[in-house]
């Protein structure tokens, strides 16, 4: 089981969003940034990720969302603990920048994947809310 967890790229952040832990799968990309603010390490990431991080901190609930960043669309998951956030992600599709034709095609795929995942996550949230409402009756 531990191996499976390690196979998923993830990063643990403290309450100031500094990197305090990195899974083996994310070690190559994020290991060198340990101790630094994750959002400072990746310019442009702040407006895309900070609102979700704050939501996870504020509500104490797991937050899942779809986001494009750095050539990939991924499903991101933020799990809050007492003073930390664990951010993990699963890449869904990648931008192909080799040729203009490839870029055009993959851009459509990226936008479609983003929309589809956002819709799926939204439906999941709605279903979850309905279950809460129905359970409360």
């Amino acid at each position, binding site marked *: 089981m531990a191996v499976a967890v390690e196979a998923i790229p993830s990063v643990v952040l403290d309450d100031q969003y500094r990197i305090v832990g990195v899974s083996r799968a994310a070690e190559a990309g994020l290991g060198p940034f340990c101790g630094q603010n994750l959002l400072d390490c990746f310019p*442009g990431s702040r407006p895309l990720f900070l609102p979700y991080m704050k939501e996870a901190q504020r509500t104490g609930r797991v937050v899942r969302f779809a986001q494009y960043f750095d050539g990939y669309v991924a499903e991101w998951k933020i799990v809050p603990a007492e003073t930390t956030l664990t951010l993990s992600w699963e890449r869904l599709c990648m931008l192909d920048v*080799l040729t*203009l034709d490839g870029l055009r095609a993959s*851009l459509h795929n990226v936008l479609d994947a983003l929309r589809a995942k956002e819709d799926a996550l939204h439906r999941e949230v709605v279903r979850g809310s309905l279950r809460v409402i129905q359970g409360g009756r």
Partner: protein
Amino acid sequence: MNDLRFVVDGDDRITRVADEHRATMARYLGHPLWTYLPGSEPVLSPIFEEARETQERVESTVFYAGGTVDVRVTPADATLAVRLRRRTDLNVRTLATLAQSLRSIEAELAARERVRPDRLAPASPRALP
């Protein structure tokens, strides 16, 4: 790929590379250029063909491998001396930066297309009586 200089033969095989690229390109000598630069054939071969047909230097700007590349092809007998120089990089960081850099790359390619000389023009006076 910031600045590449090499020579290809009539079948687009790499026959010579600049000294500074020997470490990375030497093993591709004798191989088609398209094995070293995958996906570049539809982009570069029309420029190569034009240089071969006109036997004149052809310069162009194309999109390849994440950005625009200035291409200069100089024919010499049966070979082509090719220079590829990276001009701009696509910024894929966020959808906003991607959209912005796509717009500037499109404008850059369109501008380059507009200033490209008419290859038939120099021959036209010779057709006059």
